[in-house]
């Protein structure tokens, strides 16, 4: 189809219409339909709680992968520390759940009792309020991303240096959270969340509700990010990814562009963290381990970067395999993951999207081949 567009003189003055950008991407439409199907199955068939919970977690990991693909695939910035923003969302959510339980039951959370305290630390104030907690999670991850991104991008720290520093940042955060005097659970983390919005955690309604919320958030994130990358900002992102100096010499300040997308990506990762914690019932500093952050990049690489849908496929495929294999043979999982990376890098440079000629068009950016 692109061949026809190349050879035929087309009216150059007419800009292609870009309404509802996600409609032009068959991969994305397919994934959105699958999400819808999953929602219908959850509501209609009422599968076992284990299955519901798995679907919800996979949706969360897909959101996390999309957040990384947004900056890696479209801006060329590889973060090996995205677990930090995921953890910020997760910790704030856990704080909300514990505050909520404390005010409802009057029983102080475990770590408060361990530390010999009577009440929660002062900075927990107001976290019983769910909208405030959500706001705090977004604002905090956005602010941390802003400070780190501003310092890096303004000094033109790019490429592998940025990746290494982002990795160091998540490691530092892990060391901090291992301390028991932070008032955030220390090395045991936080667990034992009895209630969600007053409903008992673990009930079928809450589990299904969380899975539906995660699927809905994934769909919203996909549609939103797709609209972003298909528009003028998305073209600038690709230009910046491929030749930042060139873009600067055409009169565009790239620092602001990178910083904005970086903060947005961090906030999407935090949203994933918020949805993750009530589904697994625990948050601890392990989430900040550098290998988890690297694994996010592996999901994206395996699925295929720079197409959003690829990140979803990678996150779901790898984690579904992980749920199955890490139960069947946990000690083999790291080797399987490494092997998978090697195979994908050598055989499918664009990830699983290379498979089955899913790349119907060689031009993954262009959304209407026959225009």
């Amino acid at each position, binding site marked *: 189809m*692109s061949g026809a*567009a*190349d*050879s035929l*003189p*087309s009216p*150059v*003055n*007419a*800009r292609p219409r870009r309404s509802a950008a996600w409609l032009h991407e068959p991969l994305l439409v397919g994934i959105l339909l699958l999400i819808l199907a999953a929602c219908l199955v959850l509501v209609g068939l009422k599968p076992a709680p284990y299955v519901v919970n798995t679907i919800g977690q996979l949706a969360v990991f897909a959101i996390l992968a999309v957040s990384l693909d947004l900056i890696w695939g479209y801006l060329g910035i590889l973060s090996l520390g995205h677990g930090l923003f995921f953890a910020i969302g997760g910790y704030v959510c856990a704080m909300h759940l514990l505050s909520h339980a404390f005010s409802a039951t009057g029983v102080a959370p475990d770590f408060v009792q361990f530390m010999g305290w009577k009440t929660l630390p002062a900075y927990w104030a107001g976290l019983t309020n769910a909208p405030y907690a959500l706001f705090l999670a977004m604002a905090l991850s956005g602010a941390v991303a802003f400070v780190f991104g501003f310092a890096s991008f303004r000094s033109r720290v790019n490429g592998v240096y940025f990746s290494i520093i982002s990795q160091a940042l998540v490691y530092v955060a892990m060391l901090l959270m291992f301390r028991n005097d932070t008032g955030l659970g220390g090395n045991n983390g936080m667990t034992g969340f009895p209630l969600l919005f007053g409903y008992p955690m673990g009930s079928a309604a809450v589990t299904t509700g969380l899975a539906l919320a995660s699927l809905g958030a994934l769909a919203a994130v996909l549609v939103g990010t797709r609209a972003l990358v298909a528009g003028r900002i998305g*073209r*600038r992102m*690709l*230009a910046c*990814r*491929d*030749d930042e*100096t*060139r*873009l*600067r*010499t*055409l*009169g*565009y*300040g*790239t620092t602001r562009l990178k910083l904005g997308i970086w903060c947005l990506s961090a906030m999407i990762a935090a949203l994933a963290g918020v949805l993750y914690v009530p589904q697994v019932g625990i948050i601890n500093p392990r989430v900040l381990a550098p290998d988890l952050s690297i694994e996010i990049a592996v999901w994206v690489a395996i699925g295929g970067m720079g197409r959003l849908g690829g990140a979803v496929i990678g996150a779901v495929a790898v984690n579904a395999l992980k749920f199955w294999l890490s139960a069947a043979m946990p000690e083999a999982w790291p080797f399987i993951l490494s092997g998978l990376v090697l195979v994908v890098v050598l055989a499918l440079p664009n990830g699983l999207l290379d498979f089955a000629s899913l790349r119907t068009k060689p*031009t993954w*950016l*262009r959304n209407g081949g026959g*225009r």
Partner: protein
Amino acid sequence: MSALLVDKLDVVFGRFRALTALSLAVDAGEVRAVIGPNGAGKTTLLDVISGITKPLRGRVMLGDSLDLAKCSEAGIAKAGVRRKFQKPSVFPALTVYENLDIGCGAGLPASERAARIGAVLGEIGLEPRAHALAGALAHGEKQWLEIGMVLGSNPRIILLDEPVAGLSDAETERTAALIRALRRPDRAIVVIEHDMAFVEAIADRVTVLHEGRTLYEGGMRGARADARVIEVFLGR
């Protein structure tokens, strides 16, 4: 008055002096060629003018008041100084049209954008390729597209780094005609080039650089007759 005044530039990379007290004045309306052997400092000069390299000393005055040596790359571009790189630097993941759209700059109103892009497409002769990906273009087409990206913003100063490197004779001729057509009374064009026949075809004056200093400035005929220029170009 000069459109662009380069005033006593010193550029040092570690212990290597790339430019030494280099001065150069380019007038509005002229096409100036900068020639010289490899390592003479030609590309470094363009890097300083476009803000990629900061000089140790010296000024680059645009008009009376603006010192480009103190501006960011984006600020310099917004002031009307645009550059084509030696290696064609088009954005491969975007179409020709989208590349030109970015070349127009962020400030151009949407209503004028389509007309401007259409005009530039005509000037560079790439209308049939408007919706092809820039990464799929032939080398010569990339060179013209990059010149088009520079033109989109209607710049006062155009810097062209080796616009005919790697082109066939026919393409070189077409590029020469394109550059001659870009000449305007309110615009200065600086071209770096190795191809002497091409320089003679387009340039009003030439500046010969050698080891970071100006060796000669004047007409091409004078350059060919200058003893020092001959010595530098024919080797020692």
